[in-house]
């Protein structure tokens, strides 16, 4: 996992190493400074030697300046390295997601992908910053300080040597207990946020059913649970600082006692007063660095879950990719399905499409009809290879879709998705998704084909009208027509409309279809619809049920051969429901 994340450090390796290097210099100085301070007390203050005091004083000032410079440099490089690392992580993830197939996209919810690129990267960035600074600093500090105490006095060093692992064990124990508790709390926070989000979204439902008290109670339960578990976690953490103090104070007391004893016994020859003072400082330093170290571990522990979530994104292999020596031209709009079966889960017992055999000639118009959940959308998504068939073959332009360059294939097969999206930007910018080099004339032409020209011209800013995120400032029908225009701009060989005119009135709907017939006769058109009138005049109508083709033919053929088709047709077109009268 760490290896995979580390790949994103790249050009920030130097900064990271420099951070660690300058941190080490800083540590060396921070160790030397108390040593010199001790000398200043011993040789200077104690002896009343002003010149010595000044000498050491200036050396100390010089060192403080150096230490400041190193500190500032390490801080600087650290900021560069950690921000850069985070940037690369975000970039790698975002770019990786761009290579995902529909199958990969379906695996992660959009909300989860967004959190991973934002929040999770933040946690990892914080941990990284900790690692290159603190995780270098505190062990170094510990070692230097420990060695220095041993140099001053072996016995005193032993006290600290024994105390350190004890403290570390204590801190790690706290961590061990607190970690699962925090994990629990994080999950509960998710529940809490989820409840709030649902309630914000569903205010009208809650109010309509008068479920306010029910929801308050539901929320209260979760918030109570959080209170309990979080308090528990914090309670465990409350041991942290007393434990630290216990360690520091006990060491101080022991050092005081033994130190005093040694000084008195030896008459100040093996240990002197200044050195004792220095020992106090090392004690603080050693124990502090242990605490910092435990904080690093906490941080790493917190970010571990995030790191995992990031690696999941990076590790996901797109299951659809370009073949070797791909074909870069689609010759015609012919489509053929040969014994195609499909399952979203690769589970053969849960097939969404079963044994589809189908031949469509270039330029034909095909209508697809079927009930909710009959796999209409699934069927057409195999044509531009949004998914791969589980078994069987899909051919476009007489060649297997798997042999094409993906970009070529998808440029030639334009799909207007059922759940379509416009992006924030002007209408023109949105349309140009279909073809970035399209001229204004071309844009106007496709808008006319999609019957969108009229309402666009009615906007004060016409083609420069700004579309809000999600296209909230145009109506459903307008949005659908813009999406059709966008797809037309690609000049595809095959055009697929997946229930793309459901919010468009019948008249406009038929106008669009007429325009298709007259203006793009060579393009193969596949139309999924719920209205029979939308597909009545197609060359071929396919009736799907439960992932199988149950009937196929022209309108008049189907009226004769298919009961179901006849039923749908009459229920939709028979005038006047006299049931209530």
């Amino acid at each position, binding site marked *: 996992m760490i290896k995979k994340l580390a790949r994103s450090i790249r050009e920030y390796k130097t900064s990271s190493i420099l951070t660690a290097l300058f941190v080490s210099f800083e540590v060396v100085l921070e160790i030397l400074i108390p040593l010199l301070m001790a000398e*200043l*007390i011993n040789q200077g*203050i104690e002896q*009343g030697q002003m010149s010595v005091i000044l000498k050491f004083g200036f050396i*100390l000032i010089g060192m*403080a*300046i150096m230490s*400041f410079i*190193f*500190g*500032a440099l390490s*801080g600087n490089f650290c*900021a560069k390295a950690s*921000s*850069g690392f985070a*940037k690369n992580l975000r970039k790698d993830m975002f*770019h990786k997601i*761009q*290579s*995902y197939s529909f199958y990969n996209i379906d695996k992660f*919810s959009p*909300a989860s992908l967004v959190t991973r690129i934002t929040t999770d990267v933040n946690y990892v960035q914080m941990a990284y910053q900790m690692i290159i600074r603190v995780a270098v600093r505190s062990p170094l500090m510990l070692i230097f300080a420990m060695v220095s105490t041993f140099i001053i006095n072996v016995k005193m060093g032993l006290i600290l040597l024994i105390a350190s692992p004890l403290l570390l064990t204590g801190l790690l124990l706290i961590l061990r207990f607190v970690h699962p508790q925090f994990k629990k709390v994080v999950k509960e926070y998710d529940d809490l946020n989820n409840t*709030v989000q649902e*309630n*914000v979204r*569903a205010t009208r439902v*809650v109010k*309509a*059913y008068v479920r306010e008290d029910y*929801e*308050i109670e539901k*929320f*209260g339960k979760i918030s109570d649970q959080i*209170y309990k578990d979080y*308090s528990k976690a914090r309670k465990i953490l*409350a041991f942290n*600082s*007393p434990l630290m*103090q216990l360690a520091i104070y006990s060491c*101080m*007391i022991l050092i005081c*006692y033994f130190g*005093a004893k040694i000084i*008195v016994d030896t008459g100040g020859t093996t240990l002197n007063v200044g050195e004792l003072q220095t020992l106090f400082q090392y004690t603080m330093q050693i124990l502090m660095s242990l605490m910092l170290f435990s904080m690093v571990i906490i941080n790493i522990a917190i970010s571990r879950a995030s790191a995992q979530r990031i690696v999941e994104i990076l590790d996901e292999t797109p299951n659809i990719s370009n073949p070797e020596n791909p074909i870069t031209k689609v010759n015609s709009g012919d489509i053929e399905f040969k014994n195609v079966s499909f399952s979203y889960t690769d589970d053969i017992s849960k097939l969404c499409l079963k044994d589809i055999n189908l031949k469509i000639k270039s330029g034909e118009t095909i209508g697809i009809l079927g009930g*909710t*959940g009959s796999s209409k959308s699934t069927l057409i998504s195999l044509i531009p290879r949004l998914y791969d068939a589980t078994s069987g073959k899909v051919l476009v332009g007489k060649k297997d879709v798997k042999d094409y360059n*993906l970009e070529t294939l*998808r440029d030639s097969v334009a799909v207007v998705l059922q759940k379509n999206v416009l*992006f924030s930007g002007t209408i023109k910018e949105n349309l140009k998704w279909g073809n970035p080099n399209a001229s204004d004339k071309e844009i106007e032409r496709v808008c006319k084909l999609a019957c969108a020209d009229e309402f666009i011209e009615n906007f004060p800013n016409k083609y420069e009208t700004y579309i809000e995120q*999600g296209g909230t400032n145009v109506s459903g*029908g*307008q949005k659908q027509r813009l999406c059709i225009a966008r797809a037309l701009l*690609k000049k595809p060989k095959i055009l697929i409309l997946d229930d793309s005119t459901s919010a468009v*009135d*019948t*008249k406009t709907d*038929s106008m669009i279809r007429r325009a298709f017939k007259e203006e793009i006769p060579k393009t193969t058109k596949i139309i999924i619809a719920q209205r029979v009138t939308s597909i009545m005049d197609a060359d071929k109508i396919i009736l799907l049920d439960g992932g199988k083709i149950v009937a196929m033919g022209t309108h008049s053929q189907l009226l004769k051969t298919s009961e179901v088709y006849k039923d*749908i047709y009459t229920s939709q077109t028979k005038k006047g*429901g006299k049931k*209530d009268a």
Partner: protein
Amino acid sequence: MPKEKSNKKSNSAKRILHYIFKSHKIQIALVFILIIIASVSSVSSALFTGEIIDYIGKIMKEGAEFSGIITRITIMAIVFGAGIIASFLYNLIMVYISQGVLKDIRDEMFAKMQKLPVKYFDTHTHGDIMSRYTNDTDSLEQMLCQSIPQIISSVLTILFVFAFMLSISIYLTLVIIFFLIFMMLITKTIGGKSRKYFIAQQVSVGKTTGYIEEMINGQKVIKVFNHEQQNKDGFDKLNEELCFNATKANKYANIFMPIMQNLGHLQYVVIAIIGGLLAIFGVNNISLTGLSVITLGNIVSFMGLSRQFTMPISQVSQQVNSIILALAGAERIFEMMDTPAETDEGYVTLINVEKDEEGNLTEVEHRTNIWAWKHPHHDGTTTIHELKGDVRFFDVDFGYDKEKIVLHDVSLYAKPGHKIAFVGATGAGKTTITNLINRFYDIADGKIRYDGININKIKKDDLRKSIGIVLQDTNLFTGTVKENIRYGNLAATDEQVFEAAKLANADDFIQRLPQGYDTMLESDGANLSQGQRQLLSIARAAIANAPVMILDEATSSIDTHTEKLVQDGMDALMHGRTVFVIAHRLSTVQNSNVIMVLDHGRIIEKGSHDDLIKLKGKYYQLYTGKLELD
């Protein structure tokens, strides 16, 4: 303006204090005492070491007893012990206080949110409301759990250290004050710079997150249009900008600590030199305890103290930022809590009744499917009359804000048992009318009567209970399919749930779900198709079995065949009850008793399908496809 803002901030601070003191008075007092003990103990460690060093000198020079050291160490151990216990206890108590306060605020905020008018949710984005529960509460928590205790203890430490310093030497304390001022100046400059870039970073984060959100949600469209490369380029640009601002912001933040620390070293040296001078030249030392000669121990103690001084100061200055952040968050939380709740001055209540042969009504507790209005009068009498489902609008005007009226002079009457349909373009006011019936919004002018009662006199909850509504946006809740259907009637048995699902034609697909009725739905039923979600929300309304029903584009994503089946089921269920229907497909509303054609907030045609066809007006044009419904 800035003054008002700072007033608001101090108000939020006061209110947070109010939450703290409300139910935790004793604990807070206790925490305060404990913090004092802990700070005294930590400050005195420097004093003790100085004392001991002095005493060692005494032993060596004057031959004092070694036992003196032991006494001193014992006292030191006791003081330290007290400090440790105190700090443990106050940390523990603070956990309960802060978590308790957070729980109170959260619960209160949520309860308040439930009572807010629908309008509040129209005028605030979901993200904005959500962030009050997440970001704002988080920063409040940070403040309560960390900043406040740390600041109290830091300030106390600073005060004690200062007092001790004064008790040792006033001259040396002056040096400290000089450095203190210097440090504060640096904090201000660096803090200002760093804040500027932190703000820039926040803006960048917002922009980048927005981009990611939009693009990830449109990822499938991006694939279909081969737009990956453009998308990467767009992202890279924002990402670079974010990285630039983050680097700057962190740089300043990272430099802060080395500056403080090394200023501390500098201060240490300066004190050593000045202290040394004072000691060598035997300058009379002035301290709070009087005049004396400065000792080696004094200087050592003072140097220890000076090191203890730097730490809490940099801690306080770091906490100030998080407190400002938390107060800004608190302000947003209180803003929501202070928003006026939905008003309800109704007094007519909805009850279940039993009807005897003569048609007399008696109130009963259990559900009878016969409802009645219980109407208390001014003279103290109460009348009960049966709910019929007669809804009338008299010259109703309405606007989401007062300047912009969107409904004009709407008059209509729905006779009991009738099916009333609304037809019109997007934005014509169809949904708005139905939202007025259950008082999601209050009308600006006119009157709405329900069975002859002004709806303002009916208790809102009871009014809403009497009206079942199925919205186009389905909004399912996390939970099992069964729980979601039961949302309409919490007391419903499993049998009733199955029945409702069958009626809504949802039974079929539910049976095919992995765990059938016990399948968990997550994030608004993301694992279901839009049509399936609508079927579930119809089942939810069916189980509520309300005397009046509103179907707002309830079947827009259901194929026409299934729609027909659902409609037959609903017709059977609602037989004899009033139903309002909004639908895009005219075939859905053809069999209504009355169809209202709306245009720009006015009813322009009304009548049955046949009447309207004969009229050859707008409806006729729509029906024959001569007019666009958009």
